[in-house]
């Protein structure tokens, strides 16, 4: 708990090496704070050096030379006072001359040192048609102008909310188009909480894994199932979890699931195969690097996964040894790493072997059917599971298979509609654009599998009359 206490003291201050999220308007970007590192965000470049030591939540303005200037006083962003929406466009004649400020005027204003917000204000005040424009056109105008001239940047602590919004907005393809409200449903339907043992299989850059870890707060254990050469955790790392969180995180390759289920992945055989694996491991390593490189394209700052694992083991010695020693050391390191990896595999295997996981969360680009049918075997009875898929049809198949197979009840196929609102005096309405779809979820609860079928006259989920009222119900 010591490091926990330390974390509380330090947690409000931006430190070098922190994973943070930059915010400008509704746009986010996850970066790691490093000195003298140029950040490009929304077509602006700057350095985060000046952010170090400031509090999270601070607003910065980008000054000349890309340095950040903290703004202590925070204004509301909207130039509310200028908003007198003409109710329609009836009085507008588009003659291309509605903006009285010329491009030169604007440049002059900039040279005079006017801040972005002030320039936008000037533009609005000098637009003869602004007041006559409809609200929609006004919003568009302000947004366009703001984007061009404003530059306030806020540095935030990462969270599931922020990272889910960020990925959905910027790179939905990397997270299988999982919308943030759908992720929210998964965490709640999965009853994810501290102290449980949860199996996660996500090909969403590790976003779902990170969300699960955040909800577990470092208590309990998470087993990440992974396809291919190694687990992908680009988004997970962006959460900036304290090191001890990673001690509760395990990974297990899908490719060994059948062996584990068959009981062929015993401790001894794995110890032996550990040596054989060393070559395999080496072969897999570059593969992994490639896949991570792809995943991390835009996340230049994410450290290597292995690096983090090592970090929790303590700092590396940077001794100045001879070449031979170095080579020896590298071989040694590799051996240590492989041994570490083998140990971790066995640890994950032993967590799974109990077949008593408290939950299963799947959000992958793979067909969910074989995945859920296999992994559900590791889950204890009376525990929730949730499967996300971008498409409905594979989940319909899953639903049917699970009904046939048994061992799961309360199966529910669902989708959520998300609607944002504009709440403004006399201009309240749903936002004009909405997300077309956030993907589909299949959720349910495990039960003890019925070995001898048809014991009673009932069907597993026979339609029953509405809620039975029983005297003892609330005893």
């Amino acid at each position, binding site marked *: 708990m010591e490091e926990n206490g330390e974390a509380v003291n330090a947690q409000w201050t931006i430190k070098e090496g922190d994973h943070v999220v930059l915010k400008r308007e509704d746009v986010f970007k996850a970066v790691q704070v490093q000195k003298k590192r140029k950040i490009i965000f929304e077509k602006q470049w700057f350095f985060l050096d000046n952010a170090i030591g400031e509090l999270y939540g601070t607003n910065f303005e980008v000054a000349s030379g890309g340095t950040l200037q903290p703004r202590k006083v925070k204004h509301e962003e909207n130039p509310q006072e200028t908003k007198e929406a003409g*109710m329609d466009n009836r009085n507008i004649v588009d003659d291309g001359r509605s903006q009285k400020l010329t491009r030169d005027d604007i440049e002059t204003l900039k040279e005079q040192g006017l801040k972005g917000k002030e320039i936008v204000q000037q533009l609005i005040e000098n637009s003869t048609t602004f007041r006559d424009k409809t609200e929609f056109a006004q919003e568009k105008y302000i947004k366009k102008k703001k984007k061009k001239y404003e530059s306030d940047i806020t540095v935030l602590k990462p969270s599931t909310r922020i990272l889910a919004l960020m990925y959905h907005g910027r790179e939905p393809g990397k997270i299988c188009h999982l919308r943030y409200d759908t992720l929210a449903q998964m965490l709640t339907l999965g009853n994810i909480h501290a102290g449980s043992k949860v199996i996660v299989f996500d090909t969403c850059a590790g976003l779902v894994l990170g969300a699960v870890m955040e909800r577990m707060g470092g208590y309990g254990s998470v087993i990440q199932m992974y396809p291919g050469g190694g687990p992908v955790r680009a988004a997970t790392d962006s959460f900036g979890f304290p090191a001890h969180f990673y001690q509760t995180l395990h990974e297990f390759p899908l490719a*060994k699931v*059948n062996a584990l289920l068959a009981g062929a992945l015993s401790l001894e055989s794995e110890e032996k195969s550990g040596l054989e694996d060393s070559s395999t491991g080496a072969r897999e390593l570059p593969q992994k690097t490639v896949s991570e490189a792809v995943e991390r394209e835009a996340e230049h700052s994410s450290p290597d996964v292995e690096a983090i694992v090592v970090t929790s083991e303590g700092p590396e010695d940077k001794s100045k040894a001879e070449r031979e020693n170095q080579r020896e050391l590298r071989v040694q390191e590799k051996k240590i790493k492989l041994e570490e990896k083998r140990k971790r595999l066995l640890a994950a295997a032993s967590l799974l072997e109990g077949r008593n996981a408290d939950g299963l969360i799947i959000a992958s680009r793979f*067909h969910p059917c074989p995945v859920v049918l296999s992994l559900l075997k590791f889950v204890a009875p009376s525990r929730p599971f949730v499967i996300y898929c971008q498409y409905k049809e594979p989940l319909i198949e899953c639903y049917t298979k699970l009904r046939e197979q048994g061992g799961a009840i309360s199966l529910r196929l669902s989708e959520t509609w998300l609607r944002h609102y504009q709440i403004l005096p006399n201009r309240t309405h749903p936002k004009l654009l909405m997300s*077309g779809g956030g993907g589909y979820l299949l959720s349910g609860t495990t039960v003890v599998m019925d070995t001898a079928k048809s014991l009673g006259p009932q069907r597993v989920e026979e339609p029953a009359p509405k809620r039975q009222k029983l005297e003892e119900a609330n005893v």
Partner: protein
Amino acid sequence: MSFVEYGDVIQEGDTAIVFLGHDSMFPVKVQRGGQTQTRYGALRHSADLIGKHYGSKVTCSKGGWVYVLHPTPELWTLNLPHRTQILYATDIATITMMLELKPGSVVCESGTGSGSLSHAILRTIAPTGHLYTVEFHQQRAEKAMEEFREHKVGHLVTVLNQDVCREGFGVTGVADAVFLDIPSPWEAIGHAKAAIKKQGGRVCSFSPCIEQVQRTCQALAEHGFGEVSTLEVLLRLYDVRSVTLPLPDFGDEAGGPGGGAPSAQNATMTCKTAVAPKEMAGHTGYLTFATKSLV
């Protein structure tokens, strides 16, 4: 061709829709000797269009081809020059049915705007109905009338350039239905009532903001309208796709990496699916309907 009567063959003076591909089309006024550039090359009206059947594939000068379509109010809605924000087919369909429009209906509308709804109304009330459409903005009123004439529906419509809130629809006791798409519909409810037949009729108001709806509903109640009902219709389009999902490799039972099991390394499964687009129109406006009952 007219917007209320199908023709088979493209004729001079017709407004045809040149269809280049999914969501890519534009209207052309067919003129003898005329020529229209497309990205597939030129279309010569006399040689390529006039006399051809609507729905034909026409080859452009660069060898690419387009389809030439008969205009409909719905195609017009997708292709008309925007002078204002317009109503789209989803709302138009709801308005048309909920106002009980049919051949012979007499309809009052304000504002005319870009004429998107007007064309749809005219299509439905022809050949015996009439549309009185009131537009505040003079240029827009004139342009609308010009389009109606071009589309050969001018005889079915009267365009008035006035402020409906102050001057009403210019007719009394004749309308089966009234449609309002103006900033302050509550100011026009009295005029709407006056325009409707004494035996009763229907009214619809389209407003983007809920505050407008609230004031309009209040005005409708005050003017004795019944069956006041506010609703919203959202269109969800689906993209039909074939998606291929990989099947995971769980290895063989001996623990070998990437075993030769039935679920081999590169196994996949393909299914047809209908995917919602990333973004859709989340709101156009609220539609408030009411009935002026028999008095």
